[in-house]
């Protein structure tokens, strides 16, 4: 149980920028919203698409998330976590809710085979935002690769599929206690490797 330490990096600067933009949004600054969209839309859309495997629904989710952030910007508590973590959590939860509503979980899981291998970032220009994104994405993938495969698998299913503890255990054909232990150890290890704030 260690605390992830970090020195000022590009990520720290970006995290502060996110917080500043959110504060401006709380004051009704739409240009701040536009800027935050430029910085976060791609990873959030990618996350939604990863969970939903549907472009239309992924757009709806991202739109809902940004509008929620716009409306709730004034209530955001910076001490509880980064803006990106908040936005990613909102996106994941909304996407998983849709998955559950569609009752197509099994089909979706079959259609969207887990793929956390290094992937192309796309046709980004070398803006500060895309550099941050590349840096962080690389760090996360490296950290994931450092996990034991069974830990990685359990965490992937927990984060992207919306399965319950029992469903994950059943899917991996392991006792529930084993799954909980894998999630605990894997997440703690990721925490050690990754910087405290994205």
């Amino acid at each position, binding site marked *: *149980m260690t605390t992830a330490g970090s020195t000022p990096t590009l990520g720290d600067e970006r995290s502060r920028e996110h917080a500043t933009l959110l504060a401006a949004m*709380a*004051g*009704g600054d*739409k240009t701040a*919203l*536009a800027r935050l969209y430029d910085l976060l*839309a*791609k*990873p*959030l*859309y*990618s*996350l939604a698409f*990863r969970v939903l495997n549907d*472009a239309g629904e992924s*757009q709806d989710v*991202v*739109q809902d998330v*940004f*509008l929620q952030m*716009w*409306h709730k*910007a*004034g209530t955001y508590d910076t001490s509880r*976590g*980064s803006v990106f*973590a*908040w936005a*990613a*959590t909102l996106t*994941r939860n909304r996407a*998983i809710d849709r998955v559950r509503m569609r009752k197509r979980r099994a089909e979706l899981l079959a259609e969207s085979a887990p793929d*956390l291998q290094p*992937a*192309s*970032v*796309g046709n980004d220009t070398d803006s500060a935002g895309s550099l941050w*994104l590349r840096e*962080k*994405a690389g760090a*996360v*993938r490296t950290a*994931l690769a450092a996990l034991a495969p069974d830990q990685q698998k359990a*965490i992937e299913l*927990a*984060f*992207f599929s919306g399965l*319950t503890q029992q469903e994950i255990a059943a899917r991996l054909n392991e006792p529930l206690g084993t799954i*909980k*232990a894998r*999630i*605990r150890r894997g*997440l*703690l290890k*990721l*925490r050690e490797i*990754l910087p*405290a704030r*994205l």
Partner: protein
Amino acid sequence: MITERHEELAALRALGLLEDAERSVFESESARHPEVRALADSLAETSAALALAVPQVEPPAGLKDRILAGAGAAGGGQVIAFPLLKVAPWAVAAALALAATWLATQNLSLRNENATLQSERQLAEVAYKMAQNQLSERSLLAENMITDLGNRLRRAEDLSRLKISALASLAGNTKEAQVIAVWDPGQQAGLLTMEKLPAIADTQDYQIWIVDPAYKDPVNGGVFHVAADGKVSLAFKPDQPVAQAAAFAISLEKKGGVPKAEGPIVLLGK
């Protein structure tokens, strides 16, 4: 101190996997140990980073404009960032309205229930009075029946107690006479019914005698005179207490009778 159990709960919470029971445990434990909640927040940050691990996909070109348009229509962030104090009065008013509605509903419900109970009570009272009346009627009827039955029994007892004798003629002029004597020992009185008893001279009387073994001589039962048609029905009482009426006799005596039979016995019955 953070235990493995705390770590497990924090990790499950970060991934949205807590079940109801575990959520309760987490809340209580994080209230006692603030470091548990801090750990959960930190792990939530870590898990959120997983979003960056997926293959990156460019969002559609029009999405940004849709979002900005949606934000404009909503009127900006300040609209939502209302101070609580501005909303509180409306919330209180809404709560009061809801409470008033609820109370009114409850009041109406209780009134209806009360009216129903009153109706039921009135019906029960009517039924009770009807039952009481029926019971009184039946009670009176039963009382009358019992009284009547008692009278019948008493009459039966009285009859059984009575001594009835037919007196036979002992004289030539009383052969057609029909005399019945009924004696009630309880009342110490008797009744004589006679027909075709021969008329006698005004200087004479018939005299009744009750033969009781307790006495040496028959007990005097009184005198009577017969009318021309020979019919007599009269009550008599002995001048001494009679313990056992063994027989009845009628003698012909001088006017006014005698203390001890002197004349002829014209009728006798046991």
